[in-house]
């Protein structure tokens, strides 16, 4: 019934970027493993290889002592290996039951056996505690419910090895508890579980053993019972966590309020949100996925309709109707979605850098040399590592793309800069560089707003952190009150 897995020197390269450098370890059957590592450590890639979504560039893995190479996720599922995705893989226009049986439809003769499928779906949904009719369309579900559908779908596949990539990121505490009970039942039934999570308290609670990866390499493993949370965090980062962050610049008590938002409404996302940020302050925004943080700021710069609220920038009331107006007032917003919203990955580095402020380089024809000079300067200022200044943004690694994106959104010289998940998908070295950059920006007197899902990052980086839950700003924590426990409690509503 159970599966034993052995990774042997797995390597993986995406274009020029190497994400796995010879990873070897093994998994014994019937245990729950916590797979730890920062964003970009290579956990998800390694698991995608095991589940047949990616193929290794070099190296092999074996299942129960037999070397395997899966052609597809279907192959892996036939062996009993099922991956529950971090990014949800559901077809929005189909119903729950259609999604659960997608590619595995049951038939009676030539026709679909709707009845059996619906009954089985209903039973699995009850297991995961989702009380929705199986015919509900997936697009009508909230993110947490979609996550539960993914889990129920995996249950259908008779998994012998189940990989869960951040399954609780969107779940409430009650749903999380139900998931843990389900995991315990599966373990008793002999299923091996690989549990990927950033929430170290959950890892401590639910896993038997932890495996730590860093920068695409296996680092260490140990029994969960013998490892403290602090040790886990330090192992993930590869140094004392405190070394990752520069000392916070001291904020003068009389520092001016640079940016103030009062009673702001973004329909469907933010209700009656008020906060203010001082010049030179790093102000964080914490909250679960879907809490409305991103949408609040998209509203504030005119990308979404706002129905009420007052924005004051350096004492002047403003009401930007589009990002250009916001930029002219001195606010820029760097999206969390780097490739879909932050950078033109198919365009040249200099085109990206100057995109927001192209008028500066037009007299009236564009001065390409001045653009190249600006790029040269930005490459130095932001520590962008590239062999070729004429290459396209696509050719840069994740961390360097992010630095280019930062340079782009700072090129207009904003007084208020909003950075949404500024270190998502970048390696530890680049992360540290970005933290120092953020503090340098604040030291120049700008108001810096950081939205992040990594609590350690918010605590290490920000003077104060606001927490949003269900579209409302529920708490603002200042120095002395910034702890993971407090932030989680406010974000989930369990304080």
């Amino acid at each position, binding site marked *: 019934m159970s599966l034993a897995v052995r990774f042997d020197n797995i390597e993986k390269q995406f274009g020029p970027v190497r994400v796995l450098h010879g990873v070897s370890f093994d998994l014994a059957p019937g245990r729950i493993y916590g797979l730890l590592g920062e964003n970009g450590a290579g956990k998800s890639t390694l698991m995608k290889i095991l589940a047949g979504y990616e193929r290794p560039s070099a190296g092999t893995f074996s299942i129960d002592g037999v070397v395997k190479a899966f052609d597809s996720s279907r192959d892996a599922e036939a062996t009993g290996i099922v991956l529950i995705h971090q990014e949800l893989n559901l077809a929005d226009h189909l119903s729950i039951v259609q999604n659960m049986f997608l590619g595995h439809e049951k038939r009676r003769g030539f026709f679909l056996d709707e009845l059996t499928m619906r009954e089985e779906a209903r039973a699995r949904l009850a297991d995961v505690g989702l009380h929705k009719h199986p015919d509900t369309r997936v697009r009508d579900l909230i993110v947490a419910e979609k996550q539960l559908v993914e889990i129920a779908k995996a249950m259908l596949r008779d998994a012998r090895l189940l990989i869960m990539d951040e399954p609780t990121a969107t779940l409430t505490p009650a749903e999380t508890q139900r998931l843990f009970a389900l995991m315990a039942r599966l373990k008793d039934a002999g299923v091996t579980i690989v549990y990927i999570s950033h929430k170290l308290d959950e890892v401590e609670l639910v896993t038997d053993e932890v495996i730590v990866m860093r920068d695409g390499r296996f680092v260490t493993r140990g029994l969960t019972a013998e490892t403290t949370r602090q040790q886990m965090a330090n192992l993930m980062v590869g140094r004392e966590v405190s070394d990752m962050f520069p000392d916070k610049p001291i904020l003068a008590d009389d520092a001016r309020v640079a940016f103030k938002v009062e009673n702001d409404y973004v329909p469907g996302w933010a209700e009656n949100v008020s906060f203010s940020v001082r010049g030179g302050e790093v102000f964080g925004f914490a909250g679960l996925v879907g809490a409305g943080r991103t949408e609040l700021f998209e509203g504030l710069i005119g990308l979404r309709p706002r129905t009420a609220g007052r924005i004051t920038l350096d004492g002047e009331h403003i009401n930007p109707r589009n990002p250009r107006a916001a930029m002219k007032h001195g606010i820029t917003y760097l999206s969390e979605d780097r490739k879909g919203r932050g950078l033109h990955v*198919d365009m040249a580095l200099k085109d990206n850098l100057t995109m927001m402020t192209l008028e500066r380089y037009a007299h009236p024809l564009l001065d390409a040399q001045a653009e190249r000079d600006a790029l040269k300067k930005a490459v130095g200022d932001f520590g962008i590592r590239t062999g070729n200044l004429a290459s396209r943004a696509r050719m840069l690694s994740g961390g360097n793309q992010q630095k280019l994106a930062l340079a782009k959104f700072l090129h207009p010289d904003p007084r208020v800069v909003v950075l949404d998940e500024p270190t998502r998908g970048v390696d530890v070295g680049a992360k540290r560089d970005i933290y120092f950059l953020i503090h340098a920006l604040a030291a120049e007197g700008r108001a810096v707003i950081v939205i992040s899902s990594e609590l350690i990052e918010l605590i290490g980086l920000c003077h104060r952190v606001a927490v949003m839950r269900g579209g409302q700003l529920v708490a603002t924590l200042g120095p002395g009150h910034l702890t993971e426990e407090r932030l989680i409690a406010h974000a989930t509503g369990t304080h």
Partner: protein
Amino acid sequence: MRPAHTEDVEGSSRLGSFARRLHGVGPLLGLVALCIGGTLLNPDFATFDNAMNVLTRTSFIGIIAVGMTFVIISGGIDLSVGSMAALIAGSMIWIMNALAHGVGGHTLAPLAIIAVGIVLALVLGGLFGLAHGLLVTKGRIEPFIVTLGTLGVFRAVLTWLADGGALTLDNSLSDLYGPVYYASLFGIPVPIWVFLIVAAGGVIVLNRTVFGRHVQAIGSNEQVARYAAIRVDSVKIVTYVLLGLCVGVATVLYVPRLGSATPTTGLLWELEAIAAVVVGGTALRGGEGRVIGTVIGAILLSVIANILNLTSIISVYLNAAVQGAVIIFVAFLQRGRR
């Protein structure tokens, strides 16, 4: 982070830019090959007169295709340009004839009437483009659907204006207007000069202005452009207006050629213009493209027609088939570039 990576990056991008450069001269190489073939098949091909003839005929489609390049690079499309040209031609002739017969006892000088006609053509082109742009951006309708609709509307209105037949320019005017198409300047026909000016303007606007860069950025990724504080809607509207103006210019040159507009005027011009853009190396999905490529593409397509005319290997009736095969072949060569 690791030096080895940077080397990789450098190496592959150098290779990439070499491939791009090679790709860029592809249409030109094709045109040169066609010209050599044409010369070998019929010595009349390589004469100055024939070259001027081909280029003059190319200029209508070529001017429209330059405007189309902007629309396609920004991620849009305009299927209506043939019908639009026909309606503009019909409206011009109708107004000019009316003015020639006098309004309320007054008559304008013939030269003034022609000037009015030309201005009307440009204004109409701009307005039609503006309507397309507004429907696509503010109305949030797919450009394919918007311009498929106006394709029908424009041609039907022309047919109605012409009462199913032909609108023919008054003789008193056509003699005066004729030189716009038939005259030459320094030995080169006027339409070719206009084509050259429009193409040169297109090259400069696309590559050396803020607007041109924004057009490319929107086609490359509209969402990123929006977040980068680019006024996406305005830029898109301007691309359609520019294309409308190009259609207006092409029509101004076309009307004196035959002096009439019929329900078949400008038929399938949209396909020829789009084909010229695509053959010239601009991707239909938008983001990247070159005006010079479009110019070469337009010339290449009419050289094919010219060679078929001058030789008897393949029937002239199969002209469209050969052009179609060339378009598919070029698309085949471009496939897989991501």
